[in-house]
């Protein structure tokens, strides 16, 4: 049942590779000071965004956190638009105003990445309310972390979504850490999915490294939501290979933990399945990666040459008239 057809698998594989390669390049750009401030990579977590995106339809919406490049790319944001935004250029998705933490692209339903932990959750409720009032059949997915699960707004959002039977999917990417703290030090339970019962909604634990499992769980939750049965909570068990942000080397994690997770790399898992099902061979895969690397290179070079916003546009977009 979880199995995707070849076309969808290929789509997911491409998305995951694109995220991986783009983010590796973003880290380089950060080190080269072309990306400023801070940046949060989702390398290792690619199956989460790719699997969910594959299960969504046109008109559906997504909100997520600062760790949002993967969601943006999985939903179809162009690499050029993303890279230009990363560098603060006028041709970026948010015209350089947003940056790494605020990847937003209305055209693909990405309502926004948020730099305040948990603040994206109720925004999904609002999008779902619009869908409910307008009877559009759309649903709203909202991604958040294990750490965000402890913020008050997470509770309020789940409760209200359930009471109003809003078509929302709450997607917790449990990567075991909130910044430098292991979940065991901040949360008295291991499975965030166990909190779903507090809101009378289904809580499902999903292998977040398996893009097909993520897809399948999202399809079920989406169906429920579209049928007027209200929200669901999916907990995707996953792991970030890098540090929390910037130059964090993650000294806090247990020795061997990273290697163990890398053995269950989401790209490798899907590629291996496709190999064994005769849907892909290593050579093809290499070509795919090279092609995407080329796209990433192109996007970066293009973005580097793009102009910055003009200082005259400083006050634009503060108010609607502008």
């Amino acid at each position, binding site marked *: 049942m979880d199995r995707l057809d070849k076309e969808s698998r290929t789509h997911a594989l491409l998305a995951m590779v694109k995220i991986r390669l783009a983010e590796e390049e973003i880290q380089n750009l950060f080190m080269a000071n072309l990306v400023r401030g801070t940046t949060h990579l989702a390398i290792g977590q690619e199956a989460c965004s790719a699997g969910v995106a594959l299960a969504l339809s046109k008109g559906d919406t997504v909100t997520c956190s600062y760790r949002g490049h993967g969601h943006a790319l999985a939903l179809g944001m162009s690499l050029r638009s993303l890279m230009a935004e990363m560098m603060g250029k006028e041709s970026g998705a*948010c015209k350089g105003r*947003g940056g790494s933490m605020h990847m937003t692209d209305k055209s693909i339903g990405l309502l926004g990445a948020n730099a305040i932990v948990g603040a994206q959750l109720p925004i999904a409720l609002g999008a779902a309310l619009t869908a409910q009032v307008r009877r559009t059949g759309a649903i709203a997915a909202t991604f958040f972390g294990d750490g965000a699960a402890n913020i008050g707004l997470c509770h309020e959002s789940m409760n209200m979504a359930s009471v109003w039977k809003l078509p929302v999917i709450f997607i917790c990417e449990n990567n075991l850490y909130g910044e430098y703290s292991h979940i065991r030090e901040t949360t008295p339970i291991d499975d965030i999915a166990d909190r779903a019962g507090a809101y009378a909604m289904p809580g499902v634990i999903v292998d977040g490294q398996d893009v097909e499992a993520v897809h399948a769980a999202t399809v079920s939750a989406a169906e429920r939501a579209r049928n007027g049965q209200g929200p669901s909570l999916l907990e995707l068990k996953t792991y970030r290979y890098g540090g929390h942000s910037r130059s964090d080397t993650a000294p806090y994690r247990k020795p061997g933990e990273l290697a163990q997770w890398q053995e269950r790399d989401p790209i490798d898992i899907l590629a291996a399945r496709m190999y064994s099902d005769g849907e892909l061979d290593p050579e093809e895969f290499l070509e795919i990666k090279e092609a995407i690397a080329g796209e990433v290179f192109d996007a970066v070079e293009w973005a580097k040459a793009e102009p910055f916003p003009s200082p005259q546009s400083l006050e634009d977009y503060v108010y609607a008239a502008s």
Partner: protein
Amino acid sequence: MPTMTYRQAVTEAIAAEMRRDDAVVFFGEDVAKAGGVFKVTPGIYEEFGPVRVRDTPISEQAIVGTALGAAITGLRPVAELMFADFIPVAMDQIVNQVAKYRFMSGGQFTVPLTIRASQGAGGGFGTQHSQCAESWLMNFPGLKVVAPSSPADMYGLLRAAIRDDDPVIVLEHKSLYNLVGEVDLEAAPEELGQAAVARAGEDITLVATQQMLQRALATAEKLADEGIKPEVIDLRSLAPLDGATILRSVRKTSRLIIVEEAPRLGGWGANVAALVADEGLFYLDAPIKRVNMENALIAYSPALEDEIIPNAQRIEGAVRQLLS
């Protein structure tokens, strides 16, 4: 022209906009079936039904966040936060999300969102239910803030807020709910961001809002008998602040007193004073005085509450002193 209370003007404004535009939805704690804690919204639920008018759980952050999400996806929500003292509970959503959403997205979204709340002292509601919130919300570009003082302004400004494509906080003053006045139900909405001359005069300018405007007007009325003619300006909009109207008046009167219910430090009055000290300094014949709440908190006890916010004597005293 019909006559109605400030309270009814709220109801009428919401109803009018809901009739006019089916994108307008309305929600908050006990606003629907019960018609609101201040009985400000009776009948709205009955007329527009449970899809567009909803009671919420006690979850101010989620209320504002949901309204924001709805606003950027095509609705035009009106969210109520009941006592303005609860605004801080939802502060992040208001100032880091609602106010900034359009900007952070590089203009991809507009945020046509209205947040209503009821503010002010004088009712014996105690320290956490009596504050004025305007000045807490002024340092956030992207937000508009209005504080209507009459039934007509409430009707005009609330409708303008709902129609506006930017987020607007509309602060109602508890003490004015029973104030009666004429309201032209067919009038065009007021323009946001404009102060009004509530009483013309030439000897001194008083700037005030809401409950303090009433007291300033009463003071002006009283002084008129002695031939003293204060000009009283109803600020109406806190953000943006209408400098032109204030400067025009001070240019004429050369004297300025700001009457503000909230504490002086960090209050909107400082912004009015600073504006004049910059652009109108040479109009002034006297220091700019501010009559504010004492440097204290609103106490429950009537003996204290009635002393802590500016009363008629303090306002009158300030005027006489500045004119002497």
